[in-house]
């Protein structure tokens, strides 16, 4: 499969190797992140008038799901400010070379937890409270602050970016869907890596830190766990690391999916379906149940939410992967076939996000001018009326996204099925059914 090496350009490589451009972006992101926390704590409790809600759940989310993940994969992770304070404390420096002696506990993350199960659980926990999280600035501020504190705490107890790799509720699905992105970081020559002494890309050197994501670049075969932090480009003494442009979904040509990653696919697809029904659907009782946290109706909602994601969707999918396969390889087959859900899951989230991002985008200008809802009008746009944008193109765009997702998933299902020696048709039907359900909910 053809690749175009972006780092073949000297200026691109220089830009990526230089620390300051990334650091400046990170500092700005950190300022925005802390500003969002402050806005949530002291600004208006009305979500549509508060920077924390508007910028996190409309602005950032739109950039993340509509641009960053589909195009840049884990590009967001390379400028995410959450690990910055923790890494500073962990390393004792922002740019300086790591000290020979660890400053903190520097523990290894327990082997049993080296998966994205925790990330899925964290996402599900937030998803169950999402109606409040997405509308209440104080709750958003607490969650944002909690993630920052967790990242710092884990950096002090464990080595590298443990929070990003194993805990971050956002990082899990970014990693999953980054396999579809047309950007990758890979080694150029495997032999060079095999012969490399000291493996500075993993262990660090005077030029930079060992891979914060606990990945040996020489073994990278998919984007899922590479945070695009660019440390390996800085530390590789052999100039053997490249950032490539590639066809979309190149990682899914020969999918390798673990069970925890398969579960993540169901978490994301199921969440997209439930959010579409609850947040965009016409059923008042559903919204009511989702909002009344702690009530009997909310517990029923939570039960249904978890049942759909943990039982119904995987159960139906399992039925699609049984015919024709050997019983002893079922688990492997199930996981491998779940790769077909990655394109559809991504396009489902794009279709869902288009609905509320286009409907609420006008709040961004208002919030820029009056970020705390205090009656300021810094840019003269504080009094703009709420106005949905580009709604004429919404339904066609959602239809194209979902239809494209089905076709894309069908192709992945074909490849996965060929390797599993089963028919792809049941999984194709599953994907088509999920897409039709989403179309019914969204259109």
């Amino acid at each position, binding site marked *: 499969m053809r690749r175009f090496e972006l780092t073949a350009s000297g200026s691109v490589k220089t830009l990526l190797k230089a*620390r300051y451009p990334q*650091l*400046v972006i*990170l*500092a*700005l992101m*950190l*300022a*925005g*992140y*802390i*500003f969002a926390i*402050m*806005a949530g704590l*002291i*600004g*208006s*409790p*009305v*979500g*549509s*008038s*508060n920077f924390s809600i508007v910028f996190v759940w409309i602005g950032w989310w739109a950039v993340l799901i509509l641009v960053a993940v589909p195009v840049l994969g884990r590009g967001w992770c390379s400028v995410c400010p959450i690990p*910055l304070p923790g890494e*500073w404390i962990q390393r004792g*420096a*922002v*740019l*300086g070379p790591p000290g020979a002696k660890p400053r903190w506990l520097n523990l290894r993350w327990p082997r049993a937890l080296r998966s994205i199960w925790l990330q899925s659980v964290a996402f599900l926990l937030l998803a169950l409270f999402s109606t409040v999280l997405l509308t209440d600035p104080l709750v958003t501020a607490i969650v944002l602050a909690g993630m920052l504190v967790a990242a710092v705490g884990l950096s002090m107890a464990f080595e590298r970016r443990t929070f990003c790799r194993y805990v971050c509720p956002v990082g899990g699905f970014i990693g999953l869907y980054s396999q579809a992105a047309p950007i990758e970081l890979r080694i150029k020559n495997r032999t060079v890596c095999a012969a490399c002494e000291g493996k500075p890309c993993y262990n660090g050197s005077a030029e930079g830190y060992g891979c914060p994501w606990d990945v040996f670049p020489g073994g990278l075969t998919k984007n899922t766990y590479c945070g695009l932090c660019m440390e390996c480009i800085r530390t590789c003494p052999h100039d053997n690391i490249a950032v490539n442009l590639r066809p979309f979904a190149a990682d899914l040509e020969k999918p390798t999916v673990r069970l925890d990653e398969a579960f993540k696919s169901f978490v994301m697809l199921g969440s997209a379906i439930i959010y579409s029904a609850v947040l965009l659907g016409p059923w008042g009782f559903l919204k009511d149940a989702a909002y009344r946290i702690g009530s009997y109706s909310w517990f029923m909602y939570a039960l249904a939410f978890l049942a759909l994601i943990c039982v119904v969707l995987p159960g139906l999918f399992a039925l699609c992967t049984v015919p024709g396969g050997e019983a002893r390889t079922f688990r492997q087959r199930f996981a491998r076939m779940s790769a077909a859900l990655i394109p559809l899951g991504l396009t489902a989230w794009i279709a869902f996000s288009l609905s509320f991002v286009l409907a609420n985008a006008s709040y961004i200008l208002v919030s820029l001018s009056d*970020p*705390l*809802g*205090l*009656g*300021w009008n810094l840019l003269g746009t504080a009094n703009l009326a709420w106005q949905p944008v580009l709604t004429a193109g919404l339904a066609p765009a959602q239809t194209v996204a979902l239809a494209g997702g089905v076709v894309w998933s069908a192709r992945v299902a074909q490849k996965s099925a060929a390797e599993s020696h089963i028919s792809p048709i049941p999984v194709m039907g599953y994907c088509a059914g999920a897409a039709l359900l989403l179309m019914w909910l969204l259109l």
Partner: protein
Amino acid sequence: MRRSEFTARLLIGAAVVAAIAVPLILWWRTPLVHARMAEDGGWSPEAFKATVGEPLHLRLTSDDVVHGFAVGKLNTPAVDILPGKVSDITLLFQQPGTYTFYCTRWCGLNHWRMRGTIDVGGEPSEAQPGGEPGAPLYAALGIDLDAPREAPVIPAQRPLAAVAERQFEAELASYIAGDYYRSHSPYEVWRELRADPAFAAQDEAQLWVLTAGIWSSNTTPQALAQGEQFFAQNCAACHGEGGAGDGVFAGDMEAAGQASVQSMMGDSRMAMQSPARLSDPRRMLAASPALLQGKILRGGMGTGMPSWGPIFTEEQTWNLVAYLYTFQFEYR
């Protein structure tokens, strides 16, 4: 420490300090009056101080639903307060005293609890019209506001205050007099008319028409229009647009009343109650204007009926009282 490391730390430190300091400064420089539903705290702050002749500028915002802001016994128009938006109002007081500000939008079951006070100090900048206010009429008359009353006789149909009373202008003069009208219920007047030989030729229905005429003569279309406006703004949420006790909060009040009775060991005297049916002729024809004035000014003492004494002026109260009788009498 290397210069690059120092610069990097400075950059991050500056970003963090700016991200914390900027919103704090914005917040500190923008004191707002927050309006929340009464269950969630009402007004914050709920008391202000002002001085006669010095403008008091308030910036108001709502933390939940649409509220309104107005000050009782002050002519400044009410302002709406939208969620997440800021409304400005400037108040200017001519008289010292304690003023009550209140929510003017039906924001919830306990909407009427959304009140606060403004203590205005200083010397009066203009003479108070009519001098010092005396005791309200209902208090001067010693009316027991809570005594049960019911008109034993009611008209078969809503009487129309027509031209009939003009034929009896001289005979009705003493009945039309303001003091008499305000201290008697329509039923009491009707009963006295029936006993008056001057009206011996009138049947019961015609006597009700004359009674309606007496009530009509004690108000004006302008006063009724203002009374209607006050009723729509302040009363209809519970009593209903037509006074039938079926306002949008009536069901909630009944439910809240039942719940509170349970918590009070069955004592219903102070529990929130269903709103009074002002369209009920047996209730309203037994009520004098002074009695209604008392009920409006004092309120229902825990039953859910707010006290409007600190908010309505005397004229506004009488206009509202006059409007309440339109549920019984038709004026031409």
